[in-house]
């Protein structure tokens, strides 16, 4: 009996997988979307190199200090993609037209710089709404910081000479020495490998999202198409039972997720090679695979449940967006928020969302907290079973047919 039921599940999953694998357009879109982020990066970097935004250093002072500052700014901007520096000798000391950023060195700059107590003023003109100006400002600020440090050092040395004392200008200017060390949540010293694993875990938790999206779309689409095309009516009269339908559709969705996940993995590896990504060892990847599979089961079950309850193709699309939006919200939060440090009420709400446990299980394992990883995996497994059970309960033959 069980063998017959399993064969029916396999038949439905086989049919759904076959339909998907023969849908060349959808497959092509999956490949394109997997490489969309790396392509976006390449596009932005490429366009940045093509731009020729001008950064002007307007010299209204021709003393030694002014020339030194101009040299530092020119050096800092040399090689910056899409930025070109021009040094302008002008008396008006205003930003020249066409420059996204201008650093004006006013008259008296060098005199003040060589004094012991006078401030040195520099004026910065920045064009609003220009991303190139923001980038240029960062480079210029770094150069100004270096100039300021060098000036302060010179002043301390001169003051010490006047006072007849010997001091280390570095210690006077930066008396606070910061000695940092990365530690595990239990307080033990973290090795560079452990630190890399923790970073990799956050990346891997975020990557789960890209696999869930195709799974949700495939499941919602396959059910609503069964309903719209009339094949659902034929399925409804076969001996296929509720749990067999849900299991078959969930496996079909998993195939879609694995196809998309495989492509994503290639894209992630390409990204990893390009950026020197480290820390994802075999154990962490194995945990990631388990958590991803459970997340797919939850997503497929929730999508089946919602698609069965709310008829219509448009509704199915909206449901998919809602479920994947929820997943996106959680996985994105994990990148920036320490969920464990949130107030109990918010944390309790987040713990009701299965995807929170996906992210926390991966993170906990990476941080060496295997017990917490197991606990989150267990909770995720329970939520997966609950979602599957709810989907099975929602199954009724009339929910597979279009209302005539």
């Amino acid at each position: 009996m069980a063998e017959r039921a399993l064969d029916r599940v396999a038949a439905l999953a086989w049919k759904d997988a076959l339909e998907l694998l023969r849908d060349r357009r959808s497959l092509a879109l999956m490949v394109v979307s997997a490489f969309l982020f790396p392509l976006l990066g390449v596009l932005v970097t490429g366009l940045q190199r093509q731009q020729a935004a001008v950064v002007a250093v307007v010299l209204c002072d021709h003393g030694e200090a002014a020339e030194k500052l101009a040299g530092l700014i020119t050096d800092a901007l040399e090689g910056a993609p899409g930025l070109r520096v021009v040094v302008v000798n002008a008396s008006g000391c205003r930003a020249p037209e066409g420059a996204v950023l201008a650093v004006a060195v006013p008259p008296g700059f060098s005199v003040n710089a060589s004094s012991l107590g006078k401030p040195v003023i520099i004026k910065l003109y920045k064009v609003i709404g220009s991303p190139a100006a923001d980038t240029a400002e960062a480079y210029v600020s770094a150069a100004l910081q270096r100039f300021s440090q060098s000036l302060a050092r010179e002043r301390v040395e001169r003051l010490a000479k006047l006072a007849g004392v010997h001091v280390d200008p570095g210690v006077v200017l930066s008396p606070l020495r910061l000695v940092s060390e990365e530690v595990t949540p239990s307080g033990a010293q973290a090795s560079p490998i452990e630190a890399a694993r923790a970073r990799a875990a956050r990346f891997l938790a975020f990557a789960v999202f890209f696999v869930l999206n195709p799974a949700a779309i495939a499941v919602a689409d396959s059910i609503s198409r069964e309903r719209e095309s009339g094949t659902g009516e034929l399925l409804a009269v076969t001996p296929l039972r509720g749990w067999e339908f849900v299991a078959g559709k969930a496996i079909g969705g998993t195939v879609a997720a694995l196809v998309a996940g495989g492509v994503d993995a290639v894209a992630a590896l390409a990204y990893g090679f390009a950026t020197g990504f480290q820390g994802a060892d075999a154990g962490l990847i194995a945990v990631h695979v388990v958590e991803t599979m459970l997340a797919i089961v939850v997503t497929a079950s929730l999508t089946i449940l919602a698609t069965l309850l709310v008829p219509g193709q448009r509704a199915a699309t909206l449901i998919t967006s809602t479920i994947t939006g929820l997943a996106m919200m959680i996985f994105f939060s994990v990148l920036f928020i320490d969920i464990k440090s949130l107030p109990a009420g918010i944390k309790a709400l987040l713990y009701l969302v299965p995807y929170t446990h996906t992210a926390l299980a991966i993170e906990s394992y990476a941080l060496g907290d295997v017990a917490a990883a197991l606990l989150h995996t267990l909770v995720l497994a329970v939520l997966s079973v609950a979602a599957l059970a709810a989907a099975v309960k929602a199954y009724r033959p009339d929910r597979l047919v279009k209302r005539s």
Partner: protein
Amino acid sequence: MAGCDDPVLLVDGAVKRFRRGPVVGPLWLRVSRGELVALIGPNGAGKTTTMRMILGIYPVDDGRILVCGEPPGRARGRAAFVPEETAIYPRLTGWEHLVFYSRLYTGSRREALQLAERAAGLTGLGKALHRKAGEYSKGMKRRLLLGFALALETPLLLLDEPTSGLDVEAAVRIRSLIRNAADSGRAVLMTSHNMLEVERLADRVVFIASGRVVDEGAPRSLLEKYGARDLEEAFVKAVAGHR
């Protein structure tokens, strides 16, 4: 048809109520072995709802329906169905359709292949079975689904508008398959808008309007009863007399 006593189908005062929409029923209907009964009515009369109640897709709110003496939910596998829509998976071949449905009904690969082979013969599609069903004409799609329904050898066969939208040649072929199914001892219930087809094909005709049976009988006796030249005229008079 072993294990199925007459009547194969008994609809005994069945009623279906929708939260929004008309009530269908109460309906009384019997279909026996070897009998071909046609359900005739205008759009919205309740034909599809009746079919769906018999198939167990819609639960009955009042009354009862028995297929081979059992409620439809427990009689799965005793009734085969061909919907009005040419419900196919366009990316699967005809043969893959037959294997897929066969696996759902048999639950074993060996039995499924035997059933699919039998269905393949009944479709008469030959080599076209290995083409994607999305490339089929409407007639070919209907033959694919009807071939499978016939291969199941269920005591009851339900057909929703089996020849609608087909060319003459395809319609003749389908009608012949349906008549043969009834002659071989199956109980056949079909819906149709084609009165001429029904007059020639059906053993008994059931007129349905506004969710209720208006009249029923053999085509010839209905023509005599209403003094009509054809079933279309008889139907109009029957419905008018019932208003």
